């Protein structure tokens, strides 16, 4: 019986939760090891051995260590092709390419404005850091333009890469979850677009994602 894989980082971290969602979709057993970032545990010499850039998540499976949440997700899908959700990363190069493309769109176009808004609207007030209205407005505009592209895409396609839920959709769950459920302001950017809102309902309603949200809301260990 394989030993559970190890994921290091707090479930509240968007990048960590991306990996958790994938593990649950693939039905791969894992152990979540918390890293207390307010105590700067992610910059400790021991942690830097497994993640030299001092960020979360870090990941260990048998003898290998990996970092970068999207790379970890791809790895899990390649290694466990026949477990859990088999369509998560496609079954042939053409389908994979389409999924990769929308993972990149998330990483390049969606991630920056959505992360900035998550920080400004959710984490800054929490950690009593002053919000920057200029930054908020600028990123709201950027994100709105990105969601215009998604709106058009989702008119023709049930999910971003085609008719199946894939890593491309999963990649968006962490940031969008905060924006839709922890803010009023950014939530509007999603609700005002018919196809985007339909898509959000479907992807966030998946059992695997609901479990991740429960982990995020659980009291600290």
């Amino acid at each position: 019986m394989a030993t559970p894989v190890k994921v290091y980082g707090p479930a509240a971290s968007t990048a960590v939760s991306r990996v958790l969602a994938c593990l649950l979709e693939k039905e791969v057993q894992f152990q979540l090891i918390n890293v207390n970032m307010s105590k700067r545990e992610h910059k400790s010499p021991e942690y830097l051995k497994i993640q030299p850039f001092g960020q979360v998540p870090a990941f260990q499976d048998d003898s290998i260590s990996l970092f970068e949440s999207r790379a970890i997700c791809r790895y899990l899908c390649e290694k466990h092709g026949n477990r859990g959700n088999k369509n998560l990363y496609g079954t042939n190069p053409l389908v994979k390419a389409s999924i990769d493309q929308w993972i990149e769109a998330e990483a390049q176009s969606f991630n920056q404005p959505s992360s900035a808004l998550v920080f400004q609207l959710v984490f800054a007030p929490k950690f009593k850091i002053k919000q920057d209205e200029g930054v908020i407005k600028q990123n709201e505009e950027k994100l709105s333009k990105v969601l215009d592209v998604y709106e058009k895409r989702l008119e023709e396609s049930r999910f971003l890469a085609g008719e199946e839920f894939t890593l491309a959709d999963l990649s968006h769950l962490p940031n969008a979850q905060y924006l839709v459920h922890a803010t009023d302001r950014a939530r509007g950017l999603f609700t005002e677009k018919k196809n985007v809102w339909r898509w959000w309902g479907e992807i966030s309603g998946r059992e695997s994602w609901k479990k991740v949200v429960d982990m995020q809301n659980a009291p600290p260990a």
Partner: protein
Amino acid sequence: MEAKKKLYGAVDSPSTMRALASLLEHQVEFEFTLIDLEAGEHKKEVFLSLSPFGEIPVFQDGDLTLFESRTIMRYISHAYAVPGKDHIFEEPNLQGIVAGWIDIEDHQFDPPASRLLHEILHKPSIGLSTDVAVVVEEEAKLAKVLDVYEERLGKRKFLGGNKFTSADLTHLPNLHLLTRTRVKELFETRPCVYAWCTGIMSRPAWTKVVDLIERSKSQA
């Protein structure tokens, strides 16, 4: 008859160079079409139907249309893998590490590299002055990233493992541009990084990419 493979890109575009590098490394035959960014060609409806974010490059292979240079690179490395010369590992453990370093380039290396190139190369070319404070700040960030690379390349000949892979290729465009500026010092002062850089930049396929871009510039 098989439809011709097409790459649409621009001359002064690291992303275009990334896609070209992958195509040339895999000896894929394709047609290269220049998109005039200054004339706003990438914002026109006909282009947006291929690339919804209006980005270049775009790659067409039969019915498949792809945007995002790293996606094109990944696709080519799998779909056109040449045994013995491939940029991928079949073993998930080994390929997982390659995938990690592709993302490291994207998230750690590219941001300071791009900001430096913007300040040092792009701004002067449009009549704006370089902000030296930003350059100093971004060089410090890049230096920290290169310290991690130095340690990694002390243990492995290439970033992704013991052979050249997409994890190395993806760095070529920014390396090519940065090492022609004052930033080259950050590379020259790190022996493992420097050996790696000069090695990968001297690959025949990369030399062809540089040549193709220079020729396109003189014709544009």
